[in-house]
């Protein structure tokens, strides 16, 4: 189930100007919705209803269609992400090497579930699809840092670094 955003929307004028630029660039193009949503998520970090409304109006597409696309694809998020985004790879190679246990451990430590953000906005947790670093399985990513060949019990120390 998708949760509604817990934090109020705080978009800036600069972000809006950037978004309008992106919309102007793609308007009238065939199949523009998904590229625009990708760029909008880059600008805002997530896609709250306010941003979706701007895109719907800008591209002259019904809001329902935009919302339909946003909720269909897992990469698009209705919730803000934490300052540090943790991704636990649940690809098969990682799974058979125990990444499921590591995910449980992180949930336990941070007291959040997959798709949630800690109340202080510091960490958010995702169970990701194969990140392609199967040689390093099991793999956890925190923003751009990659931690591989993890064993149970090591993750606490890694989280403490942030």
């Amino acid at each position, binding site marked *: 189930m998708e949760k509604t955003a817990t934090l109020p929307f705080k978009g800036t004028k600069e972000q809006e100007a950037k978004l309008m630029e992106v919309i102007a660039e793609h308007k009238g193009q065939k199949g523009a919705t998904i590229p625009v949503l990708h760029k909008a998520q880059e600008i805002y970090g997530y896609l709250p209803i306010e941003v979706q409304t701007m895109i719907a109006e800008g591209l002259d597409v019904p809001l329902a269609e935009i919302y339909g696309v946003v909720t269909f694809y897992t990469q698009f998020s209705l919730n803000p992400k934490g300052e540090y985004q943790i991704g636990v790879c649940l690809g098969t190679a990682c799974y058979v*090497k125990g990444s499921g246990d590591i995910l449980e451990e992180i949930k336990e430590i941070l007291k959040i579930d997959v798709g949630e953000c800690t109340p202080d906005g510091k960490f958010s947790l995702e169970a*990701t699809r194969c990140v392609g670093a199967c*040689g*390093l399985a099991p793999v956890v990513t925190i923003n751009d840092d990659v931690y591989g060949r993890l064993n149970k019990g090591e993750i606490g120390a890694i989280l403490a670094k942030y």
Partner: protein
Amino acid sequence: MDMVRAHVLCCGGTGCTSSGCEAIIKEMETQLAANGLEKEIKVIKTGCFGLCALGPVMIVYPEGCFYSRVQVGDVKEIVEEHLLKGRIVKRLLYQETIEEDNIKSLNEVDFYKKQMRIALRNCGVIDPENIDEYIAFDGYKALGKCLTEMTSEEVIEEIKKSGLRGRGGGGFPTGLKWQFAAAQVNEQKYVCCNADEGDPGAFMDRSILEGDPHAVIEAMAIAGYAIGANQGYVYIRAEYPIAVKRLQIAIDQAKEYGLLGNNIFGTDFSFDLEIRLGAGAFVCGEETALMTSIEGKRGEPRPRPPFPAVKGLWERPTILNNVETYANIPQIINNGADWFTTIGTEKSKGTKVFALGGKINNTGLVEVPMGTTLREIVEEIGGGIPNGKKFKAAQTGGPSGGCIPAHLMDTPIDYDSLMAIGSMMGSGGLIVMDEDNCMVDIAKFFLEFTVDESCGKCTPCRIGTRRLLELLTKITDGKGTMEDIDKLEELCYSIKESSLCGLGQTAPNPVLSTLKYFREEYEAHVRDKVCPAGVCKALSKYIIDPEKCKGCSLCARQCPVNAISGEIRSPFVIDQDKCIKCGACMSGCKFGAIYKK
């Protein structure tokens, strides 16, 4: 080009990037400059070498030294000893390449010996961000040959004759697909490339795009010429940032060189290419769903017919091929269909790339002729199972495939043999499992995936897979009945027969194949309430061996729920009612006295 006396090839694939190759390349450049060698020695960031388990890796030519698991701190030594003084740093060499006092060529190492590289030909050899290196390796020669010496019918005929079949999973003959699209009369047709590699544990397509993006561009232009299309789209996962970046660089360079755009090679053929990013939906690997997604909508599949070759993207005739399929095309044109048909088996020609992962020593990317047996891949190329464990099964085809048990390890790997034993070629993920993996749990893992990824358009898939998962969960929780196993099987067949697209039609395969080969494991869960592999938590028990326990009390102190009690220096016991099966006691015990049953 400047003459240099040595080349340092550093793997810049995702695996090695994750283990820190960027910092190593930077340090290499710094160290070379510090020693005044920057003009004599060239550092090249290549695509994947294949041996991801040993990353970060680098090869130094002309000697062909293969350094593995290189750390930033090692770089100075490599530069000062090897590159400056010519003394090879033996401690960093991949052990397999050392033979007495000589270095063995990489091609003689077990991992590479049985491989044959067609699709991966340039991966780990050229700089993927430099079109000149691709051209120097016969790049765009095939496109030139097609445009200036062959008619589009001849191109299709050549591909048909080669026997090439789709490498994305289905195995449909590529030439035939092209012929259908070519036969359509329409002023606008499209060529699409499926780079939405969604199978968990598969990374072949990504490695090709990262290591040799021009091969795919060249092949798509050839396809465009063959069917009469002037526009192509590459649909690629947004989770693959390195591949996206290199492909974009390659497209820009090809445009600059006039190899994409108007009047290519001075002919009246024009072809343009665009990248479309996926957004994380597994179903978009299905051809009609992928096209709906490029159109900017929810990526739901459409009923076929009409097939995409008749009505595809924006209702125009469209062909869609997978990355690896495309990577074979320039080779077939350059070397001829007759050459290609000498490789592989009767009905499966050429090679197949596999992403070897899981419980195997040499994790990585391998390309073998069709017909190679699973045993050769696992035991010889893959170097066997780590920690002396026993091989239990190999999973091919991801969530659409099945598990191959040990007694079928000598099955030759090709489309038809795999189908006959209840698995499928799939896109090429090959995950090895040992005795510690529970097959019911693996089936459940794949069903969790499909339930998550089912788009919801058709009922058998949306609701059926969920019911399958519930039954599997019931069994792994120790609450299953023997009737549940029968129900599970029956439901699998209904879903297979009635789902709209490939996702639903193949989703029950992991359950069916594990039921077929590991039924006793299902029955153990149900009848004996035991998980033989000790994976399913609800069914496992931690037990202290009184013979080995020294009574140190460490486990009791580590237990988060105080389930362990006893007196110092006499054996401790675990209260099974209190135990939450976290395993903290077992991993902490210094005497190996705690085991799981």
